């Protein structure tokens, strides 16, 4: 078992237990692997790479409850990255644009690319399009770092409505991304 797999798996499992720094480290390192994976396979669509990295990060976060600790992390991450890439190519109706085979999951963590390009799509603008009951919980708890209780007091929403708002808001954000491209 390679060491990236072990380390990232460990970070994710701690992250799922609500250890924010571990989860942050996991997502940072993962974004470099995703970027390398997409850059290699989308050499003809270089402008799409960073958008796809962001879309995949959001998908991985929204779907993180489907990771089973007994499963190799490589397989899980690779399947999501591949799914998002195929989805993009289907939207573009252009599978020929693929410059590297998709199915080899074993080398997923062997390449990393930490040089982020500028994303073309601004997630901040998409966030503004969400309804207040989803946007405000995300802005307060995730951008301003307030607690759920503080957010509830500030917005007049109940604490469970705040939590639901964050959850549904991030899903709605993913749906907006799918819809616009």
């Amino acid at each position, binding site marked *: 078992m390679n060491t990236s797999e072990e380390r990232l798996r460990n970070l994710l499992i701690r992250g799922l237990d609500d250890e924010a720094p571990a989860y942050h480290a996991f997502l940072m390192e993962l974004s470099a692997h995703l970027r390398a994976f997409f850059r290699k396979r989308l050499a003809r669509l270089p402008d799409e790479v960073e958008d796809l990295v962001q879309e995949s990060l959001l998908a991985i976060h929204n779907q993180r409850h489907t990771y089973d600790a007994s499963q190799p992390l490589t397989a899980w991450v690779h399947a999501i990255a591949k*799914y998002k890439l195929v989805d993009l190519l289907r939207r573009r109706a252009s599978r020929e644009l693929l410059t590297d085979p998709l199915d080899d999951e074993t080398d997923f963590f062997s390449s990393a690319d930490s040089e982020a390009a500028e994303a073309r799509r601004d997630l901040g603008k998409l966030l503004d399009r969400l309804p207040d009951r989803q946007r405000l919980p995300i802005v307060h708890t995730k951008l301003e770092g307030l607690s759920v209780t503080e957010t509830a007091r500030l917005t007049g929403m109940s604490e469970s409505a705040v939590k639901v708002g964050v959850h549904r808001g991030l899903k709605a954000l993913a749906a907006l991304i799918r819809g616009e491209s």
Partner: protein
Amino acid sequence: MKTDDLVMLLATGNGPVERHAAARRYTGAIGLGVVAASLLMVNLLGVRADLAEAIRLPMFWVKFGFVACLTVASLLAALRLSRPGARLDWVPSAFAAPVLIMWVLAAFVLANAEPAQRAELLLGATWAVCPFLIAMLSGPMFVAVLWAMQGLAPTRLRLAGTAAGLLSGTFGALVYCLHCPELEAPFIGSWYLLGMLIPAVTGALLGPRILRW
């Protein structure tokens, strides 16, 4: 928004993640589906009047066991297809094996029957309605299982939709066993299977459209 900012956003302010998400969702969907199918069966079709005698016949349990094996295989397939990167491995064979065994049994029964009886063994008295009644009973669970899957992360959408359909179809057939008077292997190997395949095909058609995430 820069990717680093997105990572910061995603990593901030989460609670612990929901545990056993797949198990919970499927338990809910299956519970709901079985109750709905049973209510439909009891109210619209009725439990077969001679059920107490029927359960003493080995063939009743062969039929029930056949459908139950397919149910387990479909459940395993649906669970695996709901999770990115999980492999199906031997699960399709676990679905195919009971079907093949039932077909061998059916061939044996037909081969040993008088030629004049063969049509009756195959068609029984209810062949024309059986598949549709099974599909009808599986309807509510079909919707519930697709809902459960939508909350997870299937990446092979056509297969996932098929598995959702098979799962609801096999449960529908399981409930239908309590109503259905037919016990002959040729009948079970054809019309029951067809009934379970109706939701499966529907799932295969709908999956790519409604399971996207």
